[in-house]
């Protein structure tokens, strides 16, 4: 199971990085999401992949019965998902605002913050 997941994670990373190389903010954002999900899948694979055994300790027991997946990576993923979700929501709103204000989602056109070329600073007075 793990090799298949490793290949899948690799594909996710490749897709994410390919999209992030685009000039358009919206594609970059989609790339960032794909990239984040690749990481989540990577951590998930780290925590053992098993079928249908939830890592829940039954009533009256103090250990899970049999082999279960490690719940810690899943907790880590949950945290990472929450964070990347809120980041994505923020970035989406920001990109939309940027599109409204600057009038383009092409990063080559987003040079408002760069200094206008007003020549070299004075050499003396």
């Amino acid at each position: 199971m793990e090799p298949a997941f490793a290949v899948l994670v690799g594909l996710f990373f490749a897709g994410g990085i390919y999209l992030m190389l685009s000039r358009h903010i919206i594609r970059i954002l989609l790339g960032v999401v794909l990239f984040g999900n690749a990481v989540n899948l990577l951590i998930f694979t780290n925590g053992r992949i098993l079928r249908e055994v939830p890592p829940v300790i039954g009533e009256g027991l103090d250990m899970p019965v049999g082999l279960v997946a490690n719940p810690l990576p899943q907790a880590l993923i949950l945290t990472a998902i929450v964070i990347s979700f809120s980041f994505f929501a923020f970035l989406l709103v920001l990109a939309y605002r940027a599109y409204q204000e600057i009038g383009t989602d092409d990063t080559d056109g987003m040079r408002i913050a760069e200094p206008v070329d007003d020549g070299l600073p004075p050499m003396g007075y």
Partner: protein
Amino acid sequence: MAATDVMVDKTAAMIAAPVTAADWLVIAPVLLPIMFGALLVMIRHSIRWHALIALGVLAAMIGANVLLLMRVLEVGPVSMTMGSWLPPFGISFTVDALGAAFSLTASVVALLCCASSVRDIDAAGRRYGFYPFLLLMMAGVSGAFLTGDMFNLYVWFEVFLISSFGLLILGSEKPQIDGATKYAVLNLVGTTLFLIATGYLYGTFGTLNMADLAVKAGQMGEVAPLMTLASLYLLAFGMKAAAFPVNFWLPASYHTPPVITGALFGGLLTKVGVYALLRTLVMIFAVERAVLSGVIGWVAVATMLVGALGALAQSDIRRISGFLVISGVGIMLAGIALGSVGGLSGAIFYALHSMLALSALYLLGGLMRQKGGSFSLHTLSGLYLASPLMTALAFIIALAVAGLPLGSGLWPKVMLVRASLEAGAWPLALAILASGFLATIALGRVFILAFWRNGIAGQPRLEAGKVSLTGYGAVSVLVIAILAMGLAPEPFIRVTTAAATGLLDSSAYVHAVFPAGGVQ
């Protein structure tokens, strides 16, 4: 399920020893800003109270940090593991001299920035949430300095990052949105790299506790997975710290928000990246750092020179400051590349100096704007005639940032140059001196044009604006701190040397987390 029905005997997994109130100091610098930040979010409409509460909380944070640093210097690293679970199962907060010194300096900078913001942040900015964002960002920054758990470090990174987004777009001017887009995307990629490394870290070691990691990584020796991990962390934190090939987000964004925000960011955020590099590469992956030291050294040289040359090419004071932040990061990286006590101690001292001096430089830019009406060297002039006091402050700050005598930048540079000559790394020594020289020219030009120059021919004299007293006050306090560091460096060197030895020999750190030898 009722509490009485629980049959699991948890005593073996719980901490039984009582925790004194003094141990709670470990989390006080994080808990205070979180709770009061939340309170400010709750009372978001009573903006009259925001600045007062924020000032009080930041002052209390300084108090807690001072007590914490004194305690750490007295008894060694202090640790507390949340929820009474035994480490490495519970999340530990572990504070050594390094974390406490960084946290204290950060809270001082934050208080002074907050004090100088009282006049500059208008009602709209307050209603938008400047002060809650400030407090939550400080919670994230302090949390990053004090935590003893890798994943928790990631969470604190995200906490201060998301608050910094809020601060960065405060006001929503066009350039701000443009700068924030670049800042947000690149920093998000950086933290994702951090998360990848942490995922692999957990897969490799099965633990995220830094003390546990330090022991286990030391036992493993030099193997391929650890090299991958160390390189990933170098890239991820290098991005945060704005080290050379991945530094371009900083000058693209730091000049867009109000100068107060620039001062906070330039002073604090890159140093969190440097701190994380010190923690991971020096303490946890010591063997791998030695292998990577050549790479780190060249990155350091490139960062120093790119930063200093960038500062020379700019004519906007805020952008000059941004490039000088980058140049300073290169100097700290030089210490990490060296890895000796002298080098690390110099790097830590330089980081503390840089927090104070670069914030002062940004705040000074704000004062110059208030007085002279512009950030640009093309139009700024005659500030010496308008305000001799500001000129004196600017002089000291320029000395400190360029690393000349009187200012706080001199001693760490001396330590670093000496350490690199001892290690035979003359390119590093040369680059430190060259970048100091270039920074001197860049700042000297600011000084000559903005202060010495007597007005510009054919251009009406700029109306001398009023400069707020709080602004002067904050910069003056920073300058006093810079002078103290420059004139009496011994106590600071003692702290930074303790921090550097604590990083190189982590046994005291490990002992604080696992007093009984621990779960190995």
